């Protein structure tokens, strides 16, 4: 079990809901991978006519999953905080995946704005899941601002590159052993997710790698299996790496035949 803000969950895979071929496939992927938390967003809703937002919300509610609203696309503290308030009202949750984007090519978080927004929202009762980097000092300041979960990126959003800075992510895990850490963004393959779990991360949040796969439902199942395997491996205690070979077959008693 993993706990975020006193909410206990069984699944360590959290799934984004964007970019699926159809709502039906999104629904099937969520069910097939036994997803308990999905991320959602807010966008302008057209007056009258087509109400795509209402249909999407009905689908999510039918599934009975917990939602983690985001502030995706927000570039300022003001914008992110206002979006968070709107999300809390619409989705009826204090959870917020806080994104304050600082750079458009990499969608790298503006960590200064992130800390400021996290403090404002935490002080007002939000449970903040900050999308951050692996920077230890920023992590410390986010915790000081009231965050009790951290979500460092694996790689730029949608890049599918996996864990860009394993050293930094390992250091983050070691520095904050008791803080739930979730890898968010940049995951492309189940092996990337397994690697995150092997490092001791508590969960993985991803979207594109499943939604844009040729067969999203099958890929969701593959990710769920990889995350279970990675978690089991972490708990089993991986061996340390070495620079040189070490015989695994005992050499004592070997016949002298040379």
């Amino acid at each position: 079990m993993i706990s975020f803000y006193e909410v206990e969950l069984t699944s360590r895979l959290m799934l984004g809901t964007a970019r699926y071929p159809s709502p039906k496939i999104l629904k099937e992927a969520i069910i097939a991978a036994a997803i308990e938390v999905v991320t959602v967003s807010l966008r302008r809703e057209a007056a009258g006519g087509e109400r795509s937002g209402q249909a999407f919300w009905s689908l999510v509610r039918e599934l009975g999953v917990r939602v983690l609203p985001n502030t995706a696309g927000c570039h300022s503290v003001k914008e992110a905080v206002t979006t968070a308030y709107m999300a809390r009202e619409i989705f009826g949750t204090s959870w917020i995946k806080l994104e304050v984007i600082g750079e458009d090519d990499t969608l790298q978080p503006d960590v200064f704005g992130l800390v400021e927004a996290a403090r404002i929202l935490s002080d007002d009762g939000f449970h903040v899941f900050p999308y951050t980097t692996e920077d230890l000092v920023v992590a410390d300041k986010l915790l000081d601002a009231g965050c009790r979960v951290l979500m460092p990126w694996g790689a730029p959003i949608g890049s599918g590159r996996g864990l860009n800075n394993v050293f930094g992510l390992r250091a983050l895990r070691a520095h904050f052993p008791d803080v739930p850490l979730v890898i968010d963004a940049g995951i492309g393959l189940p092996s990337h997710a397994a690697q995150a779990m092997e490092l001791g991360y508590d969960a993985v949040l991803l979207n594109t790698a499943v939604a844009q796969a040729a067969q999203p439902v099958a890929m969701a199942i593959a990710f769920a299996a990889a995350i279970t395997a990675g978690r089991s491996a972490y708990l089993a205690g991986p061996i340390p790496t070495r620079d040189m070979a070490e015989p695994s077959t005992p050499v004592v008693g070997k016949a002298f035949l040379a």
Partner: protein
Amino acid sequence: MNILVNGKARNINATELLEVLNELGYGNATIATAVNRCFIPVTARVDITLSENDRLEIVAPMQGS
């Protein structure tokens, strides 16, 4: 009165936010609102009176990651 609704110019008759939303056809839709970049909770919609050139943002649930 002319206001901007989600970035588009609209001419409306109502002035109270709740009535404006009804006039625009949002009815019972699950939406959140901001006026001039400030969040307006559901409970405050009856207290807010819009003025000429105000900017009204209306958002709804959407897919996200």
